């Protein structure tokens, strides 16, 4: 399947390394050289990274440059999800030109050039894998596919999980093991950098002079830090995820009372993928666009004659929770939630998905 095709490069790369018993190209870069590295990267690529815009608030994704490099935030994960670089809020599917007895159709799959996303955590990488399951399932969405194939991903181990993080409870680790081009792990005085693809390897090579070989001690330190963060998240939870397919609709009423239908949870969720399709027209020219949508909106399932199978807010909120913990799993074999906690942070009604899932 296509999902596999996409990851096959990265998987094959790892397999070859294992077969040849070559240790992955792990290198060390100190804090000062990292600054230099990122500065040079931002001159040769468009680098999008978490930038601290308001102290005390979560960072937001922004283009990295010399001026904001000092506000680059590598500890706290950004509130903005990375999905919008792959599934933009609005995207053209095709255009048409209407003539007499003639329709000309056209479309263009743009290829993002030299774009690096920096700062993805394992939850963000796993969220992209889940989006792949939907968007690359045959017939694949060519617009999404082109972005997945071309955008470079530089990920990070989590060093400071947010209070709302619960990735361990949905089966994930707070550090990446695959799916990245380059991963950075915090150690004393700098970062260990590990390539996860040929393109990542090339990046390391291109800036070779800034890196040094890693030492056993540093690898050990990385593993200890990883373990400590894992334990920190894990120990915050004692109850398993409840089987939401077995609870009645009234179970969700308590959340429904607090929901203001803003869809902040949907838009910051790195796995929410639903979209709308509509047409525009100017004289003989027209086209079709796909735009971001939310299953919490009242009209999401309303049909022409006015029938609305999910007319109540309670049924829509239930839909969203079940999509994450029941339906996605039925369809693709894993939860549709990566435990990033963004929806918890953003909700003005203090609705907590962990409470709905029975974790707290």
């Amino acid at each position: 399947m296509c999902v596999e095709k996409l990851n096959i490069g990265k998987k094959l790369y790892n397999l070859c390394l294992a077969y040849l018993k070559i240790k992955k190209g792990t290198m060390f870069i100190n804090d000062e050289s990292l600054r230099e590295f990122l500065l040079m990267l931002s001159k040769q690529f468009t680098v999008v990274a978490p930038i601290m815009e308001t102290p005390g608030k979560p960072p937001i994704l922004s283009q990295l440059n010399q001026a904001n490099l000092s506000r680059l935030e590598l500890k706290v994960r950004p509130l903005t999800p990375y999905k919008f670089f792959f599934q933009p809020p609005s995207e053209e599917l095709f255009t048409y030109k209407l003539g007499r007895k003639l329709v000309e159709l056209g479309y263009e799959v743009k290829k993002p050039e030299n774009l690096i996303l920096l700062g993805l955590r394992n939850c963000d990488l796993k969220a992209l894998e889940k989006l792949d399951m939907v968007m690359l399932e045959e017939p694949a969405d060519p617009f999404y596919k082109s972005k997945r194939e071309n955008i470079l991903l530089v990920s990070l181990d989590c060093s400071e999980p947010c209070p709302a993080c619960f990735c361990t409870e949905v089966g994930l680790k707070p550090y990446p093991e695959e799916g990245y081009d380059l991963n950075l792990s915090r150690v004393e005085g700098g970062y260990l950098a590990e390539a996860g693809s040929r393109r990542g390897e090339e990046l390391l090579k291109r800036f070779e002079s800034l890196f040094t070989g890693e030492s056993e001690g540093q690898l050990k330190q990385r593993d200890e830090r990883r373990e400590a963060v894992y334990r920190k998240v894990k120990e915050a939870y004692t109850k398993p995820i409840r089987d939401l397919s077995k609870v009645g609709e009234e179970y969700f009423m308590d959340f429904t009372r607090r929901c203001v239908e803003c869809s902040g949870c949907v838009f910051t969720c790195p796995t929410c993928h639903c979209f709308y399709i509509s047409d525009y027209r100017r004289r003989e020219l027209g086209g079709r666009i796909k735009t971001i949508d939310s299953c919490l909106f009242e009209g999401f399932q309303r049909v022409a004659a006015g029938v609305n199978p999910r007319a109540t807010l309670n049924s829509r909120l239930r839909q969203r929770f079940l999509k994450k913990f029941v339906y996605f799993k039925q369809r693709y074999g894993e939860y549709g939630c990566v435990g990033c906690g963004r929806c918890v942070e953003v909700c003005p009604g203090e609705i907590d998905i962990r409470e709905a899932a029975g974790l707290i």
Partner: protein
Amino acid sequence: MSLNPYLPRLAEVLEVKEESPEVKTLKLKLKEGRMEFKAGQFLELTVFGVGEAPFTFSSSPFNLESFEVSIAKVGSVTDAAHQLKGGELVGVRGPFGNGFPLEEHKGRDLVIVGGGIGIAPLRSLLYALVAERSEYGDLKLLYGARSPSLIIYKDEWEKFMEKGVEVYLTVDVGDETWRRGPYGPCGYTHVGVVTTLFDMVKLNPERCVAFVCGPPIMIRFTVQRLLQLGFSASRIYLSLERMMKCGLGKCGHCNIEGYYVCKDGPVFQFETLKDVPHPF
């Protein structure tokens, strides 16, 4: 297939037929290639400049030269579709969905129950069945519309009867014409909701399978009735409808619990849905 699954193929409108004040049937032909589909599958129809909407094929799957959709006028795309004329171009994507599982039920009796525009996919089904008439046992059609003028495919029911289908028609509210029985040879001058037709037919649930399509309330009552008659949930098939956009299992609009109507449906065994809250 195009590398862009959102891109429609062009088709020409060959003919437009007014079936009733609310429904028109468009006969279409692809500009390039042929449309191969199964009864019960659907397509996404684009009226350029307006939008796209899903419609089930209403014609015989054995006719590869052209295909038909029957469209009830209810909103923007359907409104624009009603204004199409022969020779104009539309866009089509598909076929999508699963279709009716006919192979599994060869040799059995079939009862086909339709309400309103829900008769469209069932017409395609009937054409598929009569093309291989000897493969099946008794074929019964129970079809209801709100009023006599809304009964569609008027000139076809007699032909289906000639080909070995028992056709039973009903209307919620009759009128002069209905009382005089214009459909004399091919059915009834019956008045009442479609489920009242069950009183006029004898069904053997042991060897019979039901295919149902219509508005939610009609489906609800029909399923209830079939269960009362002793049909098992796995012998009842429903063709369902949900808001749709992509037809590809990606946009998320058409789900019933964990199922996507566009991919796992639109035809569902009632067995699959019997524990689902509010499937129709």
